[in-house]
């Protein structure tokens, strides 16, 4: 019988099981989605919270820098990594801030979460930094700050309180960040 190799009855039974298997998988997917979407996330820092303690070794030289050292100065704390795309845009911006506002007391601290100094240096070769760069391989500071994205930047006032949080970096954030810093540094827009 050339028409089909297997008798009709057996073929239908196979089709039914296959159909039920796939629909069961569809149900499994929806269950998985439900479970995943509901995973709770830690509360992130908001304005007014005191900045957590954070210290990390400098990229060059063997000294370590501590956020508390800058009490009395306005600090722009930025967490970055060589693998983070938007960081390429934020570095030229931070150079501008350093050039324009450093003499008015702004302290920029860029903490890399790279696993090796070499990764961080290779990034800096393409995107030079004229501000202080530290390397926190153990990622103690990012955990303390509970970053919401990469890069993340925090504006910390002279009293050590967080006054602005920026998760990610978009070009349109530039004006807002500059204005927030100017407000804290005192003296209107230069």
């Amino acid at each position, binding site marked *: 019988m050339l028409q089909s190799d297997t008798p009709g009855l057996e073929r239908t039974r196979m089709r039914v099981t296959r159909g039920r298997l796939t629909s069961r998988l569809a149900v499994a997917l929806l269950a998985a989605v439900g479970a995943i979407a509901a995973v709770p996330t830690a509360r992130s820092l908001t304005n007014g919270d005191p900045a957590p303690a954070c210290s990390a070794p400098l990229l060059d*030289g*063997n000294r370590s820098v501590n956020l508390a050292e800058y009490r009395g100065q306005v600090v722009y704390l930025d967490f970055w990594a060589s693998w983070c795309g938007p960081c390429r845009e934020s570095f030229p911006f931070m150079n501008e801030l350093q050039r324009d506002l450093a003499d008015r007391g702004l302290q920029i601290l860029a903490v890399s979460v790279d696993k090796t100094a070499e990764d961080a*240096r*290779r990034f*800096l*070769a*393409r995107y*030079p930094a004229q501000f202080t760069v530290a390397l926190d391989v153990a990622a103690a500071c990012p955990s303390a700050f509970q970053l919401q994205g990469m890069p993340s930047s925090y504006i910390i006032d002279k009293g050590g309180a967080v006054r602005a949080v920026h998760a990610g970096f978009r070009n349109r954030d530039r004006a807002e960040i500059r204005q927030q810093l100017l407000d804290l540094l005192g003296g209107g827009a230069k």
Partner: protein
Amino acid sequence: MPVKLDVIPAGAGIQYLAATASAVHNAAEELTMVTLYRYPFAAMGSRCEIRLYASSEETAAACARAAIDDVLRLETKYSRYRDDSVTAAINRVAQAGGAIDVDAETATLLDYAAACYEQSDGLFDLTSGVLREVWSADRRELPDTDTLQRLLARVGWSKVRWQRPRLVFGFPGMEIDFGGVVKEYAADRAATLCAEAGFRHGLIDLGGDIKIIGPHPDGTPWAVGIQHPRIKEAVMATLDLFEGAIATSGDYERFVEIDGRRYSHILSPRTGMPVCGLAGVSVAAPECVVAGSATTIAMLMEDRGAQWLDEVGLPHVWMDQQLRVGGTYA
């Protein structure tokens, strides 16, 4: 028409892919098989060299030509020996006492020199060139103090009034020399020219002041050897540089030998005497001009040089007269 697996001819597809692959490969190779091209030349009284990784000789040579032309432009513009240079024009006015308006580039160099003057408590001084009248290479004995006092009266950035773009010399007999800044500034500019032309890997070396364009193509850093101040062929330290610049100063570069003692060509604007502190110092910084002035200021600071370098906070290495080595790279 049964199909036998092995009989199937490779089919147009495979030949097509091979042809395209090789064409693209050559294009890619051409664009990425970078070889190191070296362009030695002489400028500002020192041996210089531009090293560039490029895919073709033409692109490398074009960039090197542009960079060398810029270095030579700056050498001519700020040369102490040519009478058609900006330095000569300024010094004609300084010799007679009077005022001169300078171009924008010279103005920013003067601003930069003013910043160095403040950060070195007055030791980094463009007007200390006058002291060279007495410290010529053939001198065999120390100058007497009143000769020095007469010269020191004609030295001092504070005696010059600088309001961009006007430079005013209150009385005759002064002199300006951009020597301490121009070479490192030229290195920065040459590196920028090549970086903006799309070069990612290479360096500029103007007589030991080095500015990195970018690491080797495989990402490894340049190994820069710092010459040992006393042993010609030896190296005091080797640094790995991905980026930025490194400059070196020392009492061994040009010096005068008097009664068996070596006197550096770096003269203190306070005492009029050659400095005697560090034997050699190298400083790294993002800009070669900053690294260069930091080494010069460290030498001028004499025994406070090491401490001043710690204050500045740039990575550095030094060797003192007792051949002790210190600094972040030690």
